[in-house]
């Protein structure tokens, strides 16, 4: 069989782009899980809200896109912290299952709030020429996004790693994720660390949402559900609680989805199912994920 190189390169870049976006959102799941042992089911809906914020910023308030981006990051971060304060902080001493139920509640609340406020009518995310235009190199046609997304994600990951491994707050985060009680005894401000974690996760989801919107412009109030689930799966594949794992899991999942469809076009209708099959396989073969460690559950 003759390999169609230009096509294959396009698909790999495409898979990498999607994978990097998955990674960005998966980090939010994995960081929150690392600290609170909570699957934040509202994360995908925070992603959706960020898309709407950007949409309204550009199309209604007519703010230029380069100003909208940081603005959306700030507003989404605030939303993430607000959700933590309102829905999770009061349950700090409660059983973990209550926290999970609260997360599901927040998820439904955001989806329905968006339906009421923004209506369920599908809208189209405004295209930003610098990102959505095509670059043609020889026979390879790639959106500028194919270059920008990996670069932006790389920069954000480097920044995140710096925060986690080189700052006092990051040290606090690592300590809290291992042993919250002892961290308290060291004088670590637990609530501030948790709020910061939600803030960082939401900020990354906001960047992810805007780049996602440029790539897949169709949006409605449930647009965050499927990416949310897939990124949760990416975090599990990488080993939930592990940031590097979430990045690897996200990129792998993105490449897997795109390349399977490329090699087996007949399966394209089942595209969304691959992630779930991958989840089942990883849970059967290596339940702790690729980078996960075996942890005994704390009493």
């Amino acid at each position, binding site marked *: 069989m003759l390999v169609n190189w230009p096509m294959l390169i396009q698909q790999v870049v495409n898979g990498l782009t999607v994978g990097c976006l998955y990674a960005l959102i998966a980090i939010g799941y994995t960081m929150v899980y690392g600290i609170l042992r909570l699957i934040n089911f509202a994360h995908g809906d925070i992603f959706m809200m960020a898309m709407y914020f950007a949409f309204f910023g550009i199309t209604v308030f007519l703010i230029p896109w380069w100003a909208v981006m940081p603005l959306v990051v700030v507003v989404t971060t605030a939303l993430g912290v607000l959700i933590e304060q309102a829905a999770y902080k009061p349950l700090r001493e409660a059983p973990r299952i209550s926290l999970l139920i609260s997360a599901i509640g927040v998820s439904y609340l955001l989806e329905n709030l968006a339906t009421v406020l923004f209506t369920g009518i599908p809208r189209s995310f405004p295209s930003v020429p610098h990102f959505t235009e095509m670059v043609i190199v020889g026979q390879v046609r790639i959106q500028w996004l194919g270059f920008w997304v990996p670069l932006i994600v790389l920069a954000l990951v480097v920044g995140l790693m710096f925060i986690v491994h080189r700052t*006092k707050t990051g*040290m*606090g985060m*690592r*300590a809290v*994720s*291992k*042993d919250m*009680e*002892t*961290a*308290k*005894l*060291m*004088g*670590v*401000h637990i609530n501030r660390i948790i709020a910061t974690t939600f803030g960082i996760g939401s900020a990354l989801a906001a960047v992810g949402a805007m780049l996602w919107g440029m790539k897949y412009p169709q949006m409605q109030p449930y647009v965050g559900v499927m990416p949310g689930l897939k990124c949760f799966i990416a975090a599990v594949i990488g080993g939930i609680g592990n940031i590097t794992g979430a990045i690897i899991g996200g990129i792998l999942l993105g490449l897997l989805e795109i390349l399977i469809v490329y090699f087996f076009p007949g399966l394209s209708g089942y595209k969304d199912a691959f992630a779930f099959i991958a989840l089942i396989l990883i849970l059967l073969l290596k339940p702790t994920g690729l980078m996960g460690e075996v942890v005994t559950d704390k009493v």
Partner: protein
Amino acid sequence: MSSILRIEDLKANYGGIEALKGISFDVEEGAIITLIGANGAGKSTTLRAISSLVAASSGAIEYRGEDITGMDTRLIVERGLVMVPEGRRVFPNLTTLENLKIGAYLRKDEKGIEEDIEAVYALFPRLKERHWQMAGTLSGGEQQMLAVGRAMMSKPKLLMMDEPSLGLAPLVVKDIFDTILKLNAEGMTILLVEQNANAALRIAHYGYVLETGLCTLEGTGAELLGNSRVREAYLGRTKAERQSER
């Protein structure tokens, strides 16, 4: 001398049972005070209640003239009332140096922190050798040193230690107790909880015996060591003693 910590009729529930049924005791400034007793007597719960990790259901905890009952743990640590938890609880995913730095989490005096890290290294040279190593890879004894060093980084006025000898080899236990004496000689007040009653009473100025959530006996270290009830219950009589009783 005046007391730095005063516990009055402290009651607390832990795991659904009343673990403390009204405990009162005083910690004198500059002294080594020990709480001894069997497993489940409420020794750890007492320390955890003082640190506000467990809520007191009634009673008062007064530290340097201030009522700290129910105060945020962070604020208690800030006031110099610091605890070395049972089982060492170093952060295994942080390096030795980071574990020391996190002990100084509330401090802002960068220079003082650097000096105190050197002071900890002087006390435990092993920690300096292993400063880059993840704390999870240290031996039990080294982890206990690190736990003590980490607590010292919070600049404690009163250091509470929960079972520092637990699971350690006898030689290492001796090291740890020597360190406690050294810190005390430098002026630090120590509240020591131990199942190893013999070792604890030997170094303590004053001790309290806890039994199922109540304080049943108190006295100087020497008095308690000589007390027949204490000997029977916590120290184990020697063969010679048992024979002489016949």
